[in-house]
């Protein structure tokens, strides 16, 4: 039954595991030190090879796992040793972590290659070639930290990676920190990076609290140490495990952009498209899913926490899907779609369908990276068209947003390859069989149907919206007539960009093979890891009814999208047809249900008020004006006066002057003796001799 039983004696490469981190670190060090003197292409190829070598290593690890499914733990160094706490920096190779390594390095390498072409054009349009090197250094750093995250053997090491990827996300969103979203001088990109970082910080607070509570309860933070005690602790202190898991959920909500902390992800689209694809779609944001799957024994011990996670995921999936429907920006649609799909995964792992969640994570990495990258190709194509126009027509100085779908249209003929791969991604995401998205999403829905029916309803509706907004996007972007001259002059991207797209399109098409119903390759693969912690997976039962329902919903949604956007393509300056039908609801979707405004109103402005109060009233008025300028200055002056007057003049000078006067007075007496007449001195000597002699004689 198990694939591994066929190969009992296979090659074993576990000792290579540290190289998944070392390769990208070497790449980034070389690029950081010598990138300034290298050609653009050399930098890009070096960074891609570093990531590619990490992929090869991961693949070797996966091959080793086929023969030795129990995996291995490689201690690299002793890290922390305080009292009873012994933490090693060790790399955990098991089927779960290796799955993540393969996704991160595999998709990562394709995106690295894509970025060679993309960033070349991006720096050309935005005019700062130095940013090219910086970008690839950060990109490799991201791969390295993500590898630390997935290969961690304890929660503290995982946290190092967790923070590292957050830092890389911040750095890469703000790679054009001195530009606004349209490439003009401004701070919007920097602000978007800060927003991502701060929202993640709130999540990290949850992660830290979970870690502290865990250490308090279990006295260890290693995976094996914690999971070994779960069943025992769950009987004595179920509240502690509930607290740990709920705090962890807050961390997951931050990193994986779930309600209520999802607001940073749409803004993070300010970063270059490869960043959006790699970090904010395929890998980093799935770290939360990985964390829940990794902590499966903890979550399985407390059903309340599982329900919380499933509900957060389900509500986020639907909520974000409705927002995606109302967006006009190409990347924003994909961003909300990512949040929604992450909601699917979180709901799945929350319900205990860990395999379904991880499976969707993998296929989603394929097709969402594909969508983002081909979206980036569309944007580049339009920028090329716009650039072309600028040459023809010099007084065209209007502000032009190359990501606005209302200005696109008709790109099917201008960019055929991009059109083809984008459509593959869209169909895969919509969940049409036999593409990858169908199998993974259907597995989640089938599991939800049995495990948590209300969440199933949420997810099914979200799946309907998913198909609808993807249909809307494809028709808006690629069909009809160009609604802007730039779209009319759009050009197809070079092979360095389209080749990774084609590979990803292949993966998005065939990804479902990983875990076909009735075969369950992926389930058996992950089983080895979960069985280590005495957690038995039940292979998801394929439910034909649910498969038919979800496919029918998807087809219906695509048909609706065709009715609205395909039958009569949008014309120039025409309002979105959905707006006429839905009215204020569409405005709500378009404005993201005013969540940002609500947060501004509830938290951010209150925080600014507090900061203003603290700075003006407390710091300036109280501390500076009153305390420093009045109290301290007055006290100082008073003190100085006392010290200068009575103490310095009175006592210290008094002593010095008094001594001087005393000696002066004494000296005035004695100077009378000094007559200057030698006779007097001689007489004194004579008298002294007489006295001495008299004394000696009379003695």
């Amino acid at each position, binding site marked *: 039954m198990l694939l591994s039983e066929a190969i009992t004696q296979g090659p074993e490469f576990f000792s290579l595991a540290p190289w998944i981190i070392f390769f990208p670190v070497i790449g980034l060090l070389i690029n950081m030190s010598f990138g300034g003197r290298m050609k653009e292409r050399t930098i890009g190829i070096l960074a891609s090879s570093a990531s590619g070598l990490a992929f090869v290593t991961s693949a070797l690890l996966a091959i080793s796992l086929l023969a030795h499914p129990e995996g291995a733990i490689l201690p690299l160094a002793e890290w922390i040793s305080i009292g009873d706490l012994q933490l090693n920096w060790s790399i955990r190779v098991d089927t779960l972590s290796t799955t993540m390594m393969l996704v991160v390095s595999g998709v990562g390498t394709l995106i690295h290659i894509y970025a060679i072409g993309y960033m070349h054009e991006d720096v050309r349009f935005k005019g700062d070639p130095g940013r090219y090197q910086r970008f690839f250094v950060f990109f490799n750093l991201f791969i390295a930290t993500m590898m630390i995250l997935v290969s961690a053997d304890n929660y503290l090491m995982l946290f190092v990676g967790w923070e590292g990827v957050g830092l890389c996300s911040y750095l890469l969103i703000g790679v054009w920190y001195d530009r606004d979203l349209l490439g003009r001088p401004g701070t919007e990109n920097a602000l978007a990076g800060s927003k991502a970082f701060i929202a993640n910080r709130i999540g990290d607070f949850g992660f830290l609290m979970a870690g502290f509570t865990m250490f308090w309860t279990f006295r260890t933070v290693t995976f094996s140490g914690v999971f070994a005690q779960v069943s025992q602790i769950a009987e004595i202190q179920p509240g502690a495990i509930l607290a740990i898991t709920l705090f962890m959920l807050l961390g997951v909500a931050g990193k994986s952009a779930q309600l209520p902390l999802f607001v940073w992800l749409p803004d993070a689209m300010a970063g270059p498209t490869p960043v959006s694809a790699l970090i904010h779609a395929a890998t980093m944001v799935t770290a939360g899913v990985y964390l829940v799957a990794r902590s499966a024994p903890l979550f399985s011990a407390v059903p309340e926490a599982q329900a919380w996670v499933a509900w957060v995921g389900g509500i986020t999936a639907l909520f974000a899907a409705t927002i995606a429907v109302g967006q006009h920006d190409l990347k924003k649609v994909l961003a909300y779609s990512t949040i929604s799909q992450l909601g699917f995964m979180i709901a799945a792992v929350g319900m205990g369908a860990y395999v379904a969640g991880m499976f969707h994570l993998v296929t989603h990495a394929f097709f969402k990276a594909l969508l983002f990258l081909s979206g980036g190709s569309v944007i580049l194509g339009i920028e090329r068209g716009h650039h072309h126009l600028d040459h023809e027509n010099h007084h065209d100085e209007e502000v032009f947003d190359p990501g606005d779908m209302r200005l696109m249209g008709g790109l099917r003929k201008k960019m055929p390859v991009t059109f083809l791969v984008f459509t593959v991604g869209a169909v895969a995401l919509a969940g049409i069989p036999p593409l990858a998205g169908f199998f993974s999403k259907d597995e989640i829905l089938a599991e939800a149907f049995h495990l948590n029916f209300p969440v199933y309803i949420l997810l099914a509706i979200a799946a309907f919206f998913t198909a609808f907004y993807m249909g809307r996007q494809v028709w808006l972007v690629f069909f009809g007539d160009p609604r802007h001259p730039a779209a009319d002059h759009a050009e197809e991207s070079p092979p360095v960009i389209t080749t990774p797209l084609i590979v990803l399109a292949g993966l998005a098409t065939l990804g479902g093979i990983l875990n076909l119903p009735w075969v369950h390759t992926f389930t058996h693969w992950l089983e080895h890891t979960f069985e280590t912690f005495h957690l038995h997976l039940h292979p998801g039962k394929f439910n034909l009814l649910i498969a038919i329902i979800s496919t029918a919903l998807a087809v219906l949604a695509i048909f609706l999208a065709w009715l609205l956007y395909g039958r009569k393509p949008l014309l120039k300056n025409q309002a979105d047809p959905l707006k006429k039908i839905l009215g204020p609801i569409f405005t709500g979707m378009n404005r993201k249900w005013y969540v940002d405004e609500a947060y501004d109103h509830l938290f951010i402005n209150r925080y600014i008020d507090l900061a203003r109060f603290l700075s003006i009233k407390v710091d300036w008025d109280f501390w500076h004006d009153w305390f420093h300028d009045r109290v301290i200055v007055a006290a100082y002056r008073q003190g100085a006066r006392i010290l200068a007057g009575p103490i310095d003049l009175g006592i210290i000078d008094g002593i010095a002057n008094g001594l001087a006067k005393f000696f002066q007075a004494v000296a005035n007496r*004695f*100077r*009378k*003796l*000094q*007559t*200057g*007449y*030698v*006779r007097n001195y*001689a*007489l004194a000597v*004579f008298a002294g001799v007489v006295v001495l002699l008299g004394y000696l004689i009379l003695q």
Partner: protein
Amino acid sequence: MVPISYYIILSAILFTIGAVCVLIRRNAIIIFMGIELMLNAANLAFVAFANQHQVISGQIFVFFVIAVAAAEVAVGLALIVTIFRTRKSIDVDQLNSLKG
């Protein structure tokens, strides 16, 4: 044999004359002579006692005193000559610039 007390009395008289001379005279050279007189009174006492006790060290001491007195005379007279050149006088009562 002249008794030792005679020498001592002569020495005391000479010493007293020298001391009084130093104390009351104003001429620097006369004061100098008073000092010489006192030195020689001491010399006389030395040789008298040396003879009395039949030891040679008292007489040797006298030679040293004479030698030192000669050196002192050289320095003292040079001082007096210099003072005379600047003040046109050797009256010690006028030399009171060290008055406090």
